[in-house]
C-alpha cells in the first residue's frame, strides 16, 4: 500500500511537470514576441485548474453520478476526501487519487491554448479555460473514469485518449475556427523562434508521460510496468517514423519534426497503454506519424483554418487514432477492464464502442467549447487582441514583458 | 515488491531524462550553427535504441549465454514476460529490469556523439550508433551484467563504469580519430554558444543520475540509499575540486568548468556507488576532477585528435579512474557482490580484476567501434560532411533548421 502511494505521488509530480514542459514546447514554436503570452496561458491554468479541482472539480468528476453525465457536490472542497483507502483505487487513499487526477485536469485545458496563441486576449482565454474545465472536462472525466455512461457502455480509455487528447484537440479546432486566423496567416511563414525550447518541452513531456500512463495503472504493479514499456516504445516508433518521412519527403530530418513525432507517439499510446501488447505499441506509434503528417501537410492547408501549433493535428488526430487502435489491439488478458479483445483478435464489440466513445467525446467537446467561448465573450466582449497588439506582439501588449530583452547584446 | 517496482520505474524515468539532459549539455557547448544537429543525435538514439532494445537488444544482453560474450534470441520482442519476479532482480518482474536497462542502452551511444559533433554526417552517425549498439553495447552489457566473461572474472561494476562510461569514452576517442579534426581545429577556439544550456544539461544529468546509480541497487533498499549518497557526494566533491583548480590556476572559476566537474564526478562514482564507503566517494570525486583537468590542460593539446566535447576525458578517463578506484575502496561489507575488499584494505584480488576488466572493455570498444564505423562508411559512402557544409553549419545544411532564427530581433 505504501509503495502504491509512493508511485501515485511520484506519478502525479511527473504529470505536473508536463504542463511547464508543454509551455516550453509551445513557447519555442511561436514567434519571439509571443512566447511570454504562450507560457502564461499554461501558468495561469496551473493555478486555476488546481484550485477549481480542490473546490468542485474532483467532486463533480468522481463523486456520485447524475444521469451518467456528471457527479455531485458531496466532495466539495475535498471534504471527506482523506486517508481512507478507496473508493477509486483499491490500495491508495482517495486523496492520492484526487491529486493524481488533478494533474490531468491541469494539462488538458493547457493543450487547447496551442490553437489560439499569438492572437487571443489573455483575459478571454482565462475565462474560456475556466468555464471549459467545468462544462467539458469534468463531465467527460466523469463519463469515462467516474462511472458515467461511457464507462457503462464498455468503452475503455487507459490514461486519457478521449478525456484529455480528443477533448482538447477537438476543442482546439473549434476555438481556432471561432477566433479566426492570425493577421498574416497563409502569407508569411510562422517560424519556431527557439527550437531547443521545443525539444526541451518534448523531452519533459516524454519524461512526465511515464507518470501519465504508467501511473494510470493506479498502483506499482505489473500493469504499470506494461504501460511504461508501451509508452516508451510507441514514442520511439513515432519519432523514428516522423524522421523517416521527413528524410524521404525533404531529405532533411528536423528537430521540430522529431519532437512532434515524440508527442504524437505519446498521445497515440495513451488510451491503449495498459490494454495493448508491446508489439502493437510499435505499430500504433509508427502509424500515428504518417497519419498526422498527412493531416498537417495535406488536409489542414486545404481547410484553411489557423490552428497555430497543430493542437488538433497532434492531439485530436493522434488521440482519435489511439482510441480506435485500442479497439483494434486490446487484449483482455493484459487488462480485464476491457471486456472484449480488439478487432485484430476477431472481436468487434470493443471496436464499435471505442468509435462510439470517440463520437460522444467530439460532440461534448464541440458543444461545451461553444458555451465556454460564449461565456468568455460575454465577460470580455472581444476574444481577440486588436490588430495593433498582434503586430507589437502579445508579450508587450498583454503582459508588458519582453522574453529576451538583451538578445542583441545590450545588458 | 511493489515498492521495488515503483522505485525502478521512477529510476528508469530519471535515466531516460538524462539523454535530453545530455543533448542540452552538448548542445550548449557547440557553435550556434550546430546545436540542432548535436541535439538531433540524442533524439535519434532515443528512438532507435528503444526499438532495438524491445526487438532484440534485451535478449542479446540478458537472455542465456553464448561463449560468455553475448546472449541468445530467446526473449525476442520481449515475448511472454510474466508478472512473476526474476530472473535478474529478485523482487521485480523481468519487464521492469528490461525497462530500466533500456535507458542505459539509450544514453550510452548518445554520449559518444559529443566527440564527432560539428562535422559528422547525420546519416553516417545514425548507421554508426545503430551498428555500435549491436556490436559493442549488447556484448559488453552481457559480459558485465548478463553473466558473461567479465562478471565471471569477478570484476564489479555497480551502475555502468565499464558498460556505459569507459565504453562510450573509448569509442568516442576512436570515432574522433577516424572522422578527423574539424576544419579550424587548433586555429580558432571552439566556444560554447549557450552556457546556461550547458548548466541545464548538467543539472538534468545530476538529477537523472540518482536513478542511474541508486536505481542500480535493483530495489528500494539500504543499498539504494547508500548509492544515492555516494553519488551526490562524489559529484559535489568533483565540482568543488574543479572550481578550486580553476581558481588556483587562473583565478576564475567558470560555469562550464563547474558543469564539467559535475559530470566527471558522477561518472567516476558510477562503478563504485554501491561498493565504496561514503568517505571514499569524496576522494573519488575530488581525484577525478584533478586527473581530468590535468589531462585536458597538459596532455590533450599535444595530441592531434579532435574530441570536440572531451568525451574521452570526461567519460573514458573518469570512468577508468572510477573502476580502478572501486578496486581500491570497495568493501564486501557494503555489498556482497564484491568478493574481495579493495586495495586500501589490503587485498589485491579485486584491484587486479578491475584493471583487467578495464583492459577488456577498451579492446572491445576499440574493435567494435572500428567495425561500426566501417559499416557506416560502407552504407553512406562518407562519414564527414563536405567542408562547405561545415562552414554553413550542420543545422541548416543537414536539417534545414536554424535553432534561434530570431536572435537578431526579427520576429
Amino acid at each position, binding site marked *: 500500500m505504501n509503495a502504491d502511494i509512493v508511485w501515485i505521488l511520484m506519478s502525479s509530480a511527473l504529470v505536473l511537470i508536463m504542463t511547464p514542459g508543454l509551455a516550453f514546447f509551445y513557447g519555442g514554436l511561436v514567434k519571439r514576441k509571443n512566447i511570454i503570452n504562450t507560457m502564461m496561458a499554461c501558468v495561469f491554468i496551473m493555478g486555476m485548474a488546481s484550485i477549481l479541482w480542490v473546490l468542485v472539480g474532483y467532486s463533480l468528476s468522481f463523486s456520485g453520478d447524475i444521469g451518467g453525465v456528471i457527479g455531485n457536490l458531496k466532495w466539495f472542497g475535498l471534504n471527506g476526501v482523506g486517508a481512507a483507502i478507496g473508493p477509486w483505487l483499491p490500495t491508495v487513499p482517495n486523496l492520492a487519487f484526487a491529486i493524481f487526477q488533478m494533474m490531468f485536469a491541469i494539462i488538458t485545458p493547457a493543450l487547447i491554448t496551442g490553437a489560439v496563441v499569438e492572437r487571443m486576449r489573455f483575459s478571454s482565454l482565462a475565462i474560456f479555460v475556466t468555464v471549459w474545465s467545468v462544462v467539458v472536462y469534468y463531465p467527460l472525466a466523469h463519463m469515462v473514469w467516474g462511472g458515467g455512461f461511457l464507462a457503462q457502455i464498455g468503452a475503455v480509455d487507459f490514461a486519457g485518449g478521449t478525456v484529455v487528447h480528443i477533448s482538447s484537440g477537438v476543442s482546439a479546432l473549434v476555438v481556432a475556427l471561432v477566433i479566426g486566423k492570425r493577421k498574416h496567416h497563409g502569407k508569411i*511563414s510562422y517560424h519556431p523562434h527557439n527550437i531547443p525550447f521545443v525539444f526541451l518541452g518534448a523531452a519533459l513531456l516524454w519524461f512526465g508521460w511515464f507518470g501519465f500512463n504508467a501511473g494510470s495503472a493506479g498502483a506499482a504493479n505489473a500493469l504499470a510496468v506494461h504501460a511504461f514499456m508501451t509508452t516508451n516504445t510507441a514514442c520511439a516508433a513515432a519519432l523514428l517514423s516522423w524522421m523517416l*518521412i521527413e528524410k524521404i519527403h*525533404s531529405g532533411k530530418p528536423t528537430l521540430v519534426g522529431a519532437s512532434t513525432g515524440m508527442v504524437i507517439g505519446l498521445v497515440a499510446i495513451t488510451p491503449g497503454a495498459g490494454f495493448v501488447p508491446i508489439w502493437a505499441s510499435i505499430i500504433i506509434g509508427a502509424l500515428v506519424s504518417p497519419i498526422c*503528417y498527412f493531416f498537417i501537410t495535406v488536409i489542414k492547408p486545404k481547410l484553411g483554418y489557423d490552428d497555430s501549433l497543430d493542437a488538433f493535428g497532434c492531439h485530436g488526430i493522434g488521440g482519435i487514432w489511439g482510441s480506435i487502435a485500442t479497439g483494434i489491439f486490446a487484449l483482455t488478458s493484459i487488462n480485464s477492464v476491457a471486456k472484449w479483445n480488439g478487432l485484430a483478435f476477431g472481436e468487434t464489440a470493443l471496436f464499435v464502442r471505442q468509435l462510439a466513445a470517440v463520437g460522444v467525446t467530439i460532440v461534448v467537446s464541440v458543444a461545451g467549447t461553444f458555451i465556454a467561448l460564449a461565456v468568455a465573450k460575454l465577460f470580455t466582449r472581444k476574444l481577440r487582441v486588436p490588430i495593433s497588439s498582434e503586430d507589437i506582439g502579445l508579450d508587450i501588449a498583454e503582459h508588458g514583458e519582453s522574453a529576451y530583452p538583451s538578445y542583441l547584446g545590450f545588458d | 515488491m511493489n515498492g521495488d517496482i515503483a522505485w525502478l520505474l521512477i529510476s528508469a524515468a530519471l535515466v531516460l531524462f538524462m539523454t535530453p539532459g545530455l543533448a542540452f549539455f552538448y548542445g550548449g557547448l557547440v557553435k550556434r550553427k550546430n546545436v540542432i544537429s548535436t541535439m538531433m543525435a540524442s533524439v535519434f538514439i532515443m528512438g532507435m535504441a528503444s526499438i532495438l532494445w524491445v526487438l532484440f537488444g534485451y535478449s542479446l544482453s540478458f537472455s542465456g549465454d553464448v561463449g560468455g560474450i553475448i546472449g541468445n534470441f530467446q526473449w525476442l520482442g520481449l515475448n511472454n514476460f510474466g508478472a512473476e519476479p526474476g530472473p535478474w532482480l529478485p523482487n521485480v518482474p523481468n519487464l521492469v529490469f528490461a525497462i530500466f536497462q533500456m535507458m542505459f542502452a539509450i544514453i550510452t551511444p548518445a554520449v559518444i556523439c559529443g566527440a564527432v559533433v560539428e562535422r559528422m554526417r547525420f546519416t553516417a552517425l545514425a548507421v554508426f550508433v545503430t551498428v555500435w549498439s549491436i556490436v559493442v553495447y549488447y556484448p559488453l552489457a552481457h559480459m558485465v551484467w548478463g553473466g558473461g566473461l567479465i562478471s565471471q572474472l569477478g570484476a564489479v561494476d555497480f551502475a555502468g563504469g565499464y558498460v556505459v562510461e569507459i565504453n562510450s569514452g573509448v569509442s568516442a576517442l576512436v570515432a574522433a580519430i577516424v572522422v578527423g579534426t574539424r576544419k579550424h581545429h587548433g586555429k580558432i577556439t571552439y566556444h560554447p554558444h549557450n552556457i546556461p544550456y550547458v548548466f541545464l544539461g548538467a543539472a538534468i544529468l545530476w538529477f537523472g543520475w540518482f536513478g542511474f546509480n541508486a536505481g542500480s541497487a535493483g530495489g528500494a533498499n539500504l543499498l539504494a540509499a547508500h548509492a544515492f549518497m555516494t553519488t551526490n557526494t562524489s559529484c559535489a566533491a568533483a565540482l568543488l575540486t574543479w572550481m578550486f583548480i580553476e581558481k588556483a590556476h587562473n583565478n576564475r572559476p567558470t560555469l562550464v568548468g563547474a558543469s564539467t566537474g559535475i559530470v566527471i564526478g558522477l561518472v567516476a562514482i558510477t562503478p563504485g556507488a554501491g561498493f565504496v564507503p561514503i568517505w571514499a566517494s569524496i576522494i573519488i570525486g575530488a581525484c577525478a576532477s584533478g586527473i581530468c583537468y590535468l589531462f585536458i590542460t597538459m596532455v590533450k593539446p599535444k595530441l592531434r585528435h579532435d574530441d570536440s566535447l572531451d568525451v574521452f576525458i570526461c567519460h573514458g578517463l573518469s570512468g577508468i579512474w572510477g573502476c580502478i578506484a572501486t578496486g581500491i575502496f570497495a568493501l564486501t561489507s557494503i555489498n556482497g557482490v564484491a568478493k574481495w575488499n579493495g586495495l586500501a584494505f589490503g587485498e589485491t584480488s579485486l584491484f587486479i580484476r578491475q584493471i583487467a576488466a578495464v583492459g577488456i572493455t577498451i579492446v572491445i570498444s576499440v574493435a567494435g567501434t572500428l567495425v561500426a564505423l566501417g559499416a557506416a562508411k560502407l552504407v553512406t559512402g562518407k562519414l564527414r560532411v563536405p567542408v562547405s557544409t561545415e562552414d554553413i553549419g550542420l543545422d541548416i545544411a543537414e536539417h*534545414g533548421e536554424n535553432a534561434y532564427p530570431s536572435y537578431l530581433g526579427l520576429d
Partner: protein
Amino acid sequence: MKKVEIIIRPEKLESLKEALNLIHIKGITISPVMGCGNQLGWKESVRGSDTVLTVLPKIMMIMIIEDDKLEETIKLIVKEAQTGEVGDGKIFISEITECIRIRTGERGEGAI
C-alpha cells in the same frame, strides 16, 4: 581615407578576417545582420510544411582604410568571400572626411 562596408555570407567571416589581418587591416566592426536581395531565400520545413525564408542572415563588416590600400583590399575580399552563387554579398566604398582616435585626440590616417 575610405570606408569599406561589406555584406558577406556568415560562413565566410573567419577566413576573411584572417586574410584581412594579413594585409594589416586590424580594425573591423562586425555585425550580424539580416537582409534580402537577389538570393530570395531558402526553404525550411516546419512539421512537413515548406516555408520560404525571405530574410536571410548575413555578416556586415565596416572598416576604414588608407586610400592606397583600397584596390588590394577589394581584390582580397572578392577572392575570399566569393562562391560564385547568388548571395555572395556586396562591397560599398565611400569617402571619409575625418578620423579621430578618442584616446589621444589624434587625427587623420594615423588614427585609423
